[in-house]
């Protein structure tokens, strides 16, 4: 099944976007927009919140209530929005640095609260916007502008962290499989609670170029070839490649609902 992106969901006048030729972010954004279309959520009720970075620029191109926040803070702003007005459907678009480095604390606590936010992290293994520095998800041994001799740390596993922190919907997929990515995002949108969809994207210009992945199509093929279905390994982590699939999909009390149930009890 193929869903058309409704042009009403895009701010066509704001195009072309700032992303480089060959960037994977367009694939992620189109998966988000298709998922929104399929979810049938009232567009006026959608608040699309983003942080700072290449991924963060996505909020400017989509035709909802949009908020381009500060580096690392989209989840903080989103928490305020959702708690102040629970009728709004709050979607967060963020980068791996934005979410897991400078915004790591908000990430852990938003997941722990199980607040009803749908978070899509564009994981491109690198700081794209600032020109290719190391990010929390940069793979060991790879080259970035601040690891010119190769990276000595193991990368952070964002999905694993989300699960540990208490997220109730967690899935990972690469831009090599956009239809599954769309499906997971849709599931996340419909899920009541904190959902984290790790969209493994590409950054040809800043990451690929320095790591033998300079060709956009080769890069996507690489991500696809490296993908290992969750059902095969039954683990979110594998040293042989990128584990993809739906990792967690459970029901737990949601923060905003619980809060207003409490309010009902104490309100005078």
């Amino acid at each position: 099944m193929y869903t058309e992106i409704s042009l009403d969901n895009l701010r066509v006048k704001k195009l072309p976007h700032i992303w480089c030729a060959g960037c994977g972010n367009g694939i992620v954004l189109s998966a988000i927009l298709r998922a929104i279309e399929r979810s049938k959520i009232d567009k006026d009720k959608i608040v699309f919140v983003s942080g700072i970075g290449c991924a963060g620029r996505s909020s400017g191109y989509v035709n909802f209530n949009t908020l381009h926040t500060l580096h690392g803070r989209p989840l903080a702003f989103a928490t305020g929005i959702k708690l102040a007005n629970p009728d709004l459907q709050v979607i967060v678009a963020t980068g791996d640095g934005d979410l897991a480095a400078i915004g790591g604390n908000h990430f852990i606590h938003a997941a722990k609260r199980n607040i009803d936010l749908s978070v899509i992290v564009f994981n491109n293994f690198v700081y794209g916007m600032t020109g290719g520095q190391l990010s929390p998800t940069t793979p060991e041994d790879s080259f970035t502008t601040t690891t010119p001799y190769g990276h000595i740390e193991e990368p952070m596993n964002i999905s694993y962290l989300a699960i540990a922190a208490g997220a109730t919907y967690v899935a990972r997929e690469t831009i090599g499989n956009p239809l599954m990515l769309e499906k997971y995002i849709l599931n996340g949108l419909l899920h009541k609670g904190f959902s984290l969809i790790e969209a493994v994207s590409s950054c040809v210009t800043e990451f690929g170029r320095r790591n033998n992945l300079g060709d956009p199509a080769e890069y996507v093929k690489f991500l696809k070839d490296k993908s290992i279905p969750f059902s095969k390994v039954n683990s979110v982590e594998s040293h042989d490649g990128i584990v993809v699939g739906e990792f967690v999909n459970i029901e737990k009390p949601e923060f905003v609902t619980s809060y207003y149930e409490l309010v009902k009890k104490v309100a005078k």
Partner: protein
Amino acid sequence: MKERLMSGNEAVAIGAIKAGCRFFAGYPITPSTDLAERMSKLLPEVGGAFIQMEDELGSIGAIIGASLTGSKAMTATSGPGFSLMQEGIGFASFSEIPIVVVDVQRVGPSTGIPTYPSQGDIMQARWGTHGSHPIIALYPSSVKESYDLIFTAFNFSEKYRVPVIFISDEVIGHMREKITVDDSHVVFERKKPEVPKEDYLPFDSRYEVPPLANFGEGYRFHVTGLTHDETGFPTSDPVKAERLMERLQRKILNHLDEIFLYETFLVEDADILIVSYGVVARSAKEAILELREKGLKVGLFRPITIWPSSEKVLKDLASNRRVFVFEMNLGQYVHEVERIVKKKVEFYGKENGEIISPEEIESCILKSL
């Protein structure tokens, strides 16, 4: 009308609820914590939302988000937390989101002395963020005034689409006084757009303060901390940037008549003008009465609006008078006074945890004669 004994922090909490505050996000820090605790009790009672965030970066973000849905939102903090909030305050200033930030000052720098008062955040309230933008900062000097002034803080914030810094200190926040909790205050509600949705410009430069739609009402506008044009979308055009920067200044500075609040005490015949604010102004009043007993004509100028200042008011008051500034820091507001009065200003300040006492003020003035 009820008479009650309460602390300054409690008065701020009760006043905030009456001023329409329905959202509070905060992170505990002495001496502001009891304000958050009070809000956690009061807000659910009126159907509002309280959340203890993971840090102050989260708190300031959450109140900005809440405000964009139309909720009047507040946070409370002190020195170290106030420092962490600066980036968010800059965001709210630039994207013109109404919020109220209470800073109950304690001794700094750094962790300082958490339980003792200071006035060390006066310049941070004005210049804590990067970039140029005006801000409104208010500072009460009693429990009753804390109650009254929090209404003003919300009203200014909503009317001018600007963060208002409500400065207090450990003494004003924690001391108890008997006050009347009255319902006589006028509460200002945010101006909403009346144009068709397609024509809405969230940063319309035909207004000094453009109306602000709530997220979720169909306007679908964009908010960013990047320099933006009238539509709210990023621009790097110097002409458009200039237009925005100019309007941000004008919308506040053209309204000093309303925004600049102050008190004078026995200034009519005074030869000596004391400038002090917050808790120190209380000591100054005592000292002035003592000095007058000794035949010295001393008066007080107490800015309630700390930022922006009124050059006209201060210049007039300072002319033909010796000017003394007393503050609980090593020289902050005194720079503003010197800038404005353009003559020698005598200064006495300390930030060691002790209040500046009436006796210190008295002896300082007597010694200088």
